[in-house]
Each structure stands twice: as structure tokens, then as C-alpha cells.
């Protein structure tokens, strides 16, 4: 699909190819057992899913924009963020470079 919307990555086949292993790892976080295994040994867990170095680094930095750039899909990435108790406002703030309060205020502002 044409990627011409500013600040937006449409998750299409191109992205899906790039991010398959990363997304597969994040999909596994549906299960608490897997979330605990990740927390217990992050390196070993990432190695199991054969992440690329770029993906591994983005996971290490908990950086959502870098994860998307590396082929991550937000639906699966949200499960990764969930491990750290991050809400979608926390993630939104991180991606937009705002404070969480500013991000929330920006959301509310759009309702006026």
C-alpha cells in the first residue's frame, strides 16, 4: 500500500516480511508464562525468536518507533508494552515525544 501518510506506517506485506519474527515473539506474550520467561532472561528469549540485531536493539531500548521501523505491528507490540505496564497513552507519549500529560491533553482537546 502507498506509504504517504505522515507519521504513519501501514502494516502491509512489506512490513510483515520485515517484522515476522519480532511479531511472533510479541504474539507469544499473550501467555503469562512467556512474559515471565522474557523477563527472566531477555537475551535467551529474543535469541529463541532469532531477532535481527536491529530488532534486538529496539526491544532493548523499549522504543516503539524503532520497533515499528523494524517491522513491528502495533497490535503485537502492545503486548510487549504490556509487560512493562505501559498504556497506550504512555506509548503515544513516547512516539510523539510529548509528556504523558500533554499527550492526554492533546487527546481531550480533539473533543472540543
Amino acid at each position, binding site marked *: 500500500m502507498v506509504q504517504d501518510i505522515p507519521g*504513519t506506517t501501514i502494516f502491509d506485506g512489506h512490513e510483515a516480511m520485515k517484522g515476522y519474527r519480532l511479531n511472533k515473539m510479541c504474539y507469544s506474550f499473550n501467555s503469562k508464562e512467556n512474559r515471565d520467561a522474557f523477563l527472566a532472561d531477555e537475551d535467551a528469549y529474543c535469541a529463541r525468536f532469532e531477532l535481527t540485531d536491529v530488532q534486538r536493539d529496539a526491544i532493548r531500548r523499549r522504543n516503539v518507533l524503532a520497533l515499528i521501523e523494524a517491522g513491528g505491528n502495533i497490535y503485537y507490540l502492545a503486548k510487549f508494552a504490556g509487560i512493562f505496564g505501559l498504556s497506550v497513552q504512555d506509548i503515544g507519549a513516547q512516539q510523539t515525544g510529548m509528556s504523558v500529560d500533554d499527550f492526554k491533553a492533546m487527546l481531550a482537546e480533539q473533543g472540543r
Partner: protein
Amino acid sequence: MATIVGAVTTSHIPAIGNAMANGLQHEPYWAPFFDGYERAREWLATARPDVAVVIYNDHGLNFFLDNLPTFAVGAAPEYSVEDEGWGLPTFPPYRGIPELSWHVIETLVEQDFDVATCQEMRVDHAFVNPMRLLWPDRTPPPVATLPIHINTVQHPLPKTSRCLAFGRAIGQALESFDDELRVLIVGTGGLSHQLDGQRAGFINKEFDEMCMAKIIDDPGALTALSIHDIVKLGGTQGTEIIMWLAARGALGDRVDKIHGSYHIPVSNTAAGLLVLENRAQPALWY
């Protein structure tokens, strides 16, 4: 003959589940959202559905990219719930109605819809939260359920015109079922929101208000929108409006709007709700 009593189309934001679990429905942040559902529940009390056909999008709980269906129809005796990775509260399984599922599947395939069939299926917040909003004191709800999934995780998504046609075919399939059943359609998702990218937090009130108006009286008008248009105008997750379109398609040409509400924001999302009653038969002037 089954009767489609009407449809509820509603947002399904995960945070709703936590707000209910924590009893926050009357807090200032949440009240404008939760208040809208009282009218929906009043209507349900008169509509008395036996079955809820829930058209929703899985968010990576049941389906992964190794086998991601465009359209999937549940055909299980029950549908289970998991915490989805965020520790969401879980509930007992939802009761299915596989005989109806198979009738729907047979009718859809006969009409050239290439559905996947799921005899085991986990349902996520997009299914659970609308059930809890409509029957807050009843878990599981006092209806049998039939989940129908439409892909919004990975592009290409089905076209808006295809989703409307899919909904119409679902409606015809339900109405041709032999048993006396009262069926509620639930379409869950939207409205405008975007979780990902530098544009995270994007909301478009004008677009949402247009969509809600068209869903009621002229859903075909929305098929002029491409999926790309919807991403641009409604945000990456705003594509969930295709659930509303399919749900609307399952009703007859004419509906009565019982209730509508719209509130910004709930979490990162513009939350919308419509309650539409199906006109039993075409109006005389139609």
C-alpha cells in the same frame, strides 16, 4: 425463521474492561462514555435477543500471521477468553451456537464468501467489552454468541464494499435459519484513533460524525472510501469502522435510530455508539 432485531455498533477499547473492573463508570472521565449504554440496555430489554452475532476484529489473540483469515466465522460450542498480555480480567467462556454457525457458514460459502471456520476460538476485548457493556451484571451474557472476525491487523484489509456485502450476506444467512430466534448484531471497533507512529493520538471528529450519519441511512456511501482513505481520515485503527459497515449490512435497508452517542476521548480513541432497530418490513413508502 430467525429475526434480526437490530444492531449495536460500539467502540471496544481495552481500557473499558479495566474501568469496569475498578468500578470507575461514574467517575468524571468515564461517565460521558458509560452513560450512553443505559439507553442501549433499555432497548435490549424490549428487543429480547436470544443470540448476539458479534462482528469484531481480533487484535492478535486468536490469530497470528501464520494463518491470518480475512473473514473468519466461529463454529465452537464455547469461546474462551485470555488476558491478552496486559493482565485484562478474564471471564468464563461465552456460549456458542454451532448449529447457527454452520448454517451461516454454508450460506456464506454458497454466496462466494471465502471464510475461514473456527471450531475453537479465543475472543479478545473487541468481543468481550461490548458484551460487558450491554449486559454488565451478566457474565456470561444471557445470549448465545456467534463471533465473526474481519482482519484489520495486516493490509490488505477487505474493501469497504466487500465488508458491506459480507454483512448483507450474513443478514440473509441469519434470516434463512429455520429456528425461531431473535438475533442481535453487534459491530465493534472504531471510531477514529491511531496507536502507532508519530501521528499516534490522531482523532477526527468530523469524519466520525459523517460515518455515524451514513451508517444509519446510507451505508453504501461509505463504500466510496478506500481502506487507504480511512487510514488517512480515521487513523490506522480507524479502519475498524468496517465492522460497523458489516453490522449495518446485516440489517434491512431501513432502520430506526434508537440511540447514538459519541465521546472524545476514551483512552486514545473517539468512542462511538449506535443502537439501530431493524424495521420489520420495508416501509410502505419505500
